[in-house]
Structures are given as C-alpha cells and as structure tokens.
C-alpha cells in the first residue's frame, strides 16, 4: 500500500465524481423533487454515451454531440413518462421497461454505420478525436486541459440553470406536483404533464452525463449505465447526510449532490487502495445505499419507541 499511488488516483476520482454528479442531479430531480424512483437512468446514461460516441466518430463537434445526447435523454424520459401517465404503468415499472428497451436501442445506435448494425462498444481515442471535451489522459496535468476545470464549470452552470428553472412559475408548479398531487391539480397544474417534463429533464441530464463519461473514459459501452441509479442515489444521500444541515438553499442542495458524487468516488478509490476487489464494488455500493436509505426509517422508529416509554412498538 503506497500512499502516493492513492494520491495519484484522487484527481481521477474527483473528475469521475463530477461527471457522475451531473447524473446524480438528474436522479435528484426525480427522486427528491418529483418523489418518484426512475430506473430509466441505467439505460439513458448509456444512451447518452452511445449517441455522443457515434456522432463524434462520424465527425460531429463534441459539444454538439453532447447536446444531442442530452436531447436523446429527453426522449428516453418522454417514453417512461408516457408509459407511466398515459398508460397507467407504475413509475418504477415504466422505468424498468424503458431501461430494458434502451439496451437494444443503444446497441443499435452504437452499430450505426457498421456492417452488423449493432455493437457493444465504441472506442473514442483522444489521439484520434483531439477536440473531445474531457479525457482521463489529462486528469493528472496541471493544465487547462485537465477535465476537472471544465467539469467544475459545467456543473456550476447546470446548477445555476436548475436553480433558475425550479424558481420559475413553471418550475414551482413541478415542485408542487412532487410535493402534493391533489394540491397541484387544485391549483390547475396537470400532474401527468408535470411528471413527464420532470422525467424528461432528469434523463436529459443523465444522458448528458453519459456523453461526458464516454469521452472521459475513451469509449462508450452498452453496459456503462449498469447500476447508475444506485450510484446516483448514493450521491444524493451522501450529499444530504453530510451537508443536509448546512445547505438549505436549493442551489446548495444541488451542489451537495455533486459533492456527494465526488465523495463517493474518493471513498471508492480509498477502499480499492485498501485492497477491495473491483468485482465486489457493486455489492458494497448497494449495501451502503441500503443502509443510508434505511436511516430515516430507523430514526422514526427509535423516536416512536422513546415516545412509548422505551417499549417496542407493535
């Protein structure tokens, strides 16, 4: 165990955390603002990567490719939204259906222009596509090329846009849909349409993040989104546990989500450095998220027990 080896890994962890942080802000929109668990994201993250990769390899400007990936994410969210509100399928199942369908769609997107018409992986070498927005090759350098700077800027701009949007009349209406649907309808807000817009926005950000991740890691893979929802939730929850008492303002809450993602990746680096097998990472992540999700429930249970004079309830 060499400490410099760990220190060398930290910038990369921070950059990954920043990229996943954008994905986690997308998860925050559905999970916290709309009060829905949306599992589309595992698929739409890879969709973002696939769309960006196929566009960049065919010569499209990486900025434009990343923005088109965002639009593709909007479409993924639209499908889940219509399955949910237009066809009455429970939100969680609607998300799973879209996610499953997207696996095939993503293979097809990545296979565009190939003989087979479907492909699991698209390489994106920084040597070949020098104008990509971010790349892990530069993460150790103290130069303007370091992806951390651009990711910080993109994160700040996105948080600013989200803060503005959810403060507008329209955004307040969306928050009302997530808070109390009956009240929202009584104020003339269509809850169905609100949920669709929220799901679209969320998956748009997730795909945007996937597009950046594909560029960062130098390839797009059809399974790069596996477990994304859990990483997103981990970031949301870590951010809330650490900064919840400190950050009351909405923009700061979103910042906490991004910081949560960075902390998540830093911790991962540390446990890997301590000798954990990479194969066991997903198990560890799932355990940590389950524990943190259980906390408010346990806290209420304990409070109820105290109220009953220490006797167990029920």
């Amino acid at each position: 165990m060499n400490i410099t080896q760990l220190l060398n890994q930290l910038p990369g962890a921070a950059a990954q955390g920043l990229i996943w942080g954008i994905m986690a802000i997308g998860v925050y929109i559905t999970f916290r603002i709309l009060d829905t668990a949306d599992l589309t994201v595992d698929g739409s993250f890879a969709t973002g990567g696939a769309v960006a990769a196929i566009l960049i390899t065919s010569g499209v400007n990486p900025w434009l490719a990343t923005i088109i990936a965002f639009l593709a994410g909007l479409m993924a969210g639209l499908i889940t939204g219509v399955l949910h509100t237009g066809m009455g399928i429970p939100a969680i199942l609607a998300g799973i259906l879209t996610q499953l369908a997207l696996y095939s769609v993503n293979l097809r997107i990545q296979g565009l222009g190939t003989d087979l018409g479907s492909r699991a992986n698209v390489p994106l070498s920084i040597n070949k596509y020098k104008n990509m927005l971010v790349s892990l090759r530069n993460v150790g350098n103290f130069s303007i090329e370091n992806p951390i700077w651009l990711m910080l800027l993109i994160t700040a701009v996105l948080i600013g846009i989200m803060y503005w949007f959810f403060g507008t009349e329209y955004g307040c209406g969306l928050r009302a849909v997530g808070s109390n649907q009956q009240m929202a309808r009584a104020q003339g807000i269509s809850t169905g349409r609100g949920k669709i817009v929220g799901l679209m926005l969320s998956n748009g950000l997730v795909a945007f993040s996937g597009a950046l991740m594909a560029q960062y890691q130098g390839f797009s893979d059809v399974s790069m989104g596996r477990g994304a929802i859990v990483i997103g939730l981990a970031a949301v929850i870590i951010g809330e546990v650490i900064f919840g008492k400190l950050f009351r303002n909405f923009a700061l809450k979103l910042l906490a989500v991004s910081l949560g993602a960075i902390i998540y990746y830093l911790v991962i680096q540390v446990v890997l450095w301590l000798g954990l097998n990479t194969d066991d990472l997903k198990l560890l992540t799932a355990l940590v998220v389950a524990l943190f999700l259980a906390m408010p429930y346990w806290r209420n249970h304990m409070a109820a027990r105290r109220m009953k004079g220490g006797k167990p309830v029920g």
Partner: protein
Amino acid sequence: MAENEMLVLKNLHKTFNPGTVTQKTALDGVNLTLQKGDFVTVIGGNGAGKSTMLNAIAGSFHIDSGSIILGGQNITSLPEHRRAAFLGRVFQDPMMGTAASMNIEENLALAARRGQRRSLSWGIRADERAAFREKLATLDLGLESRLGSKAGLLSGGQRQALTLLMATLKQPELLLLDEHTAALDPKTADKVLRLTNQLITENGLTALMVTHNMKDALALGNRTIMMHEGRVILDLDAQQKQDMTVEDLLAQFEQVSGRQLANDRMLLT
C-alpha cells in the same frame, strides 16, 4: 338560462366499482342550482353523497351521466386541473390543501396563479410578497412573519387557514369546502369557521360547504340542503333555516327519508 345562476347540476349519477361486490351508487340523480352569492351548507349521513358531489364538481372523477354547468359553461368533461381555474377548494384533510415541502409564500404564489399558464418568469414577485404578508396578517395566526417556513411545519388549523386563503386569493366562481373543519379541535374549528364566513361574505363568494355539524349548517349561509342516498332530499332557504332548530331538522330528515339521521358524531359535536 338565468343570468344569476352560478352552478347548475343536472341529474348527476355516479356508481363506483360497477359490477363488483363493492358496487356503490354514490350519486343518484342530484339536481341543484346555486344563484350567484349563495352560501349553501350541505348535510347528510355517512355515504349520503356529499363529498362525492363536491368531487364531481371539482372533477376528481368523471360522472356516469348528467351535466355540470358553472358560470354558464358546461364543464362536465373538463379534466380536474382545467376546472381549477374556476374553483377554490379546501379539503377535510389539512395535509391535502398545501404543498408541505414548499414554504408559505411559494404555496400562496402557486395559488395566486391558479388556472393560469405558468411561465418561465420568476415564481414570486416582490410586490406579491408584501400583499401575502398583509393577507396572512388578517388570519391573526402570526403567519405573516413566517413566509419562508415550510407549510409542513404548520399545525392543522394553520394549514386549513392557509388553504382557505389560497382558495380565495384568486376569486373563485365557486368555493368548495369539504368538511374542512372536521379534523380540527373544537376551538380551532370555530376559528377556521369564522374565517370561512368572513372570507365568503367579504368577497361575495358562491360556496358549497359540507359539514357534519347541524348547528353550524343552520347558523351559516343563506341556504341548507340535506342529502340522502345520493339525492338532495331537503332544501331550506334563509327564512326556513332561521325558523329551524337542530331537533326540527332531525325530525324533518326522518320524515323525508324514513330513517334516523342522527349518529353520535352529529349529536355530540
């Protein structure tokens, strides 16, 4: 149709869970006309169709047959959120009327835009804030200094008072009050009821108020209707209300419906 008719319900029918063992005819030919400015109290036993009638007007579900005409416009097939433009609503459950995770001023700002297109301009204007503070002060609950508090932190009575204010902030064509004091303690219920009466009278609102309290039903408003098995079975005007006691009302009910209306909840409150 007469100029002054604000609400016309024509032969409303609604059966829940048709064709199943839980089939329930909730509305069985409701006919009712409200004049502009009418403040009508609605009484009746459990399952008489009082709340169902209010929810039918609000569009929580679609009725099986009949028509609902509000302010001369047929709204029978409009979805719930589109009808909101014309309606102010206060629910029995104090949690239903406000968004708990949003603060008081945001709730009021949402209500101030009831039924309007929601734009991308800022959700609350500075001049609105001052107006909200003024309106909240009239409630006399100290809420005017808590604009930034989450609505979820308020007590049941405070939330109902806030919901009332929200329902009347943008003048509704019809105010629907569904046992909105039933979940409150007697003292708070009394306060919210007085506030209700004040808001309705000051703004000249047309209102339908469901209550299980016969005394309140007779004391408030200019008209009282009684429902039974999904129909309006008694309709008292202001003069008849004045001449009537709770005992008379119970006797009337037995005579019209052939049943006892009284249950513990009605007699004790």
